[in-house]
């Protein structure tokens, strides 16, 4: 398997030099292979979300190296970083981060608006995903009219609409009951079978103990604690 994501001695400090300085990551080195499903586990404040955002090209490290598919993204200007993020990653946020007063279909289409993709192709992709996730009959409803589980699936559809190679999920089961959590992991399993690489930040035992997870990376106080196979 090819090495898809690699970090070398990654540091991230917020508000450096100020009284409220926070050293979120301190020298994290990590490799993620193509097709892997990796869980980042750790208590609140361990740096999971920071690591996830750096891996996912949401921000740049204070120092250290991040490569994605062999390309160094650590110091890329914002425009290029956004392009890499758009082409390579799909994000599922803890709070879903959907536009509540906007329709389901439009939420799924959101990543495609500023791209060259023609409108017909946009619709085709979105419809296919909604069909696959069992939301075709809900496509014209506003997001606030959906249940929690349905909103989660809209978030997944949006994350997949760009056909990303890597899926990043931040505490995806935080607002789900056990039944919906199981359903989510089943969907993720299907995506893994399609060859997608998945990175999940979680402190939910149900998730990191699940057979879907290939490897668990533990974080504590911004450093790697242990890696379990």
């Amino acid at each position, binding site marked *: 398997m090819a090495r898809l994501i690699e970090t070398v001695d990654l540091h991230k400090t917020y508000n450096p030099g100020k009284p409220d300085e926070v050293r979120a990551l301190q020298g994290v080195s990590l490799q993620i292979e193509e097709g892997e499903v990796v869980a980042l586990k750790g208590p609140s404040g361990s740096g999971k*979300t*920071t690591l*996830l*955002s750096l891996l996912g090209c*949401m*921000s*740049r490290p204070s120092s250290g190296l991040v490569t994605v598919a062999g390309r160094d993204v650590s110091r890329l200007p*914002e*425009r290029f970083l*956004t*392009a890499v*993020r*758009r082409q390579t990653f799909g*994000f599922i*946020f*803890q*709070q879903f*981060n*959907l*536009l509540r*007063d*906007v329709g389901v279909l*439009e939420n799924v289409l*959101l*990543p*495609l*608006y*500023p*791209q*060259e993709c*023609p*409108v017909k192709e946009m619709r085709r992709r979105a419809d296919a995903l909604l069909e696959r996730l069992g939301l075709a009959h809900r496509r014209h409803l506003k997001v606030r009219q959906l249940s929690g589980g349905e909103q989660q699936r809209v978030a997944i559809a*949006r994350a997949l609409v*760009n056909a990303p190679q890597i899926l990043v999920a*931040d505490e995806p089961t935080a607002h789900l009951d056990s039944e919906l959590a199981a359903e989510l992991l089943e969907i993720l399993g299907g995506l893994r079978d399609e060859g997608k690489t998945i990175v999940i930040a979680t402190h939910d035992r149900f998730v990191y103990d699940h057979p879907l997870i290939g490897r668990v990376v533990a974080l504590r106080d911004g450093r790697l604690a242990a890696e379990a196979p």
Partner: protein
Amino acid sequence: MSVTRQLKILEFALAATLRQRGRNFSILLVYTLVIAVLASVLFLTRALREEATLLLSRAPELVVQRIVAGRHDLIPLDYGRVLATIPGVGQVTPRVWGYYYDGLTRSNYTMLGIGADPPEGLALLSGRLPRLPKECALGAGVAGLRGTGPDGDLILVDHRGRTVDLPVTGVFRSDSALLTNDLVLLGEDDLRSFFGLPPDRATDFAVEVRNPQEVETVAAKVKQLLPDTRPITRREILRTYDSVFSWRSGMLLTLFASALLAFCVLAWDKATGLSAEERREIGILKAVGWDTADVLALKFWEGLVLSLTALLCGLILAWVHVFWFDSQLLTPVLKGWSILFPPFALVPSVDLYQLFVIAFLTVTPYVASTVIPSWKTAITDPESMMRS
């Protein structure tokens, strides 16, 4: 940025605008009205300026007034002989005219005395000019106000408080109202007798200058020979109208510029306190792959949609109001104390530069006040959305 991409962002901007239908419609309405009123005033003043230039193009080359103790005074007819001696001067005509306050209607008329040989065949006069003693011709405004017309009469009170009955021989057509609306024309002798003017005085002189290039020289010579006079050239007359109706001056324009500025400040104030919801929305867009340029393009379109629509609707409304409906909404405001006010049936005057400046001054601040407050949120790393 390609056309497809821009169109798609515009589509999203329109969807966002329609999501807050009520609020945005109110802004659009107010904005359109402000532009319509501002543009109405600008169109009106420009049209007046152009008409003044056209209609007064054959005003006397030189008008000579007399100033005594800082006030206008009647000018001795002898001065005319002096004026006639100046090289380049043609005909020197004493003019007898003045103002009459009509207590009955509380209006002011301009009374003009015409010579013994009045011009014939004036196209804009129904009837004829007064030829016989005690006859008069009227402007359409006076005739309308006093409910009289050709074959009717006009009753005025002279300087001794005596009632004078003047049969009306002609009424100027309303087409000429901008020039003649408040005029009452009498024979010159009748006017002198009416106002009690001394026989050796006139109100001022109209001086013909044969060579138009010499007017300034002649005016200077007049001032030199007759130091208590004030010569006014035709160029100055036209320049007065050029500048008094200049759209870069006037209290009304200042007021509206302030109103527009206040509107922009209000828009800015609303926009700077980007609501939590708006900030969240921008954060989501950044998180799903919109870069800063895309977000700013979205805000640009949001601003342009409203301001461009308001601009075009405002300009059309203003044009139709001023040139199709004779500025009927503005006239009560501008009329002031004037009882006699001509209909503003003005001829359109197109000034593309003026339109461009209106466009620039109305669209730019609004678009800027939509885009700039979003800047800070737009440049934030999307990482913040991970933590929200």
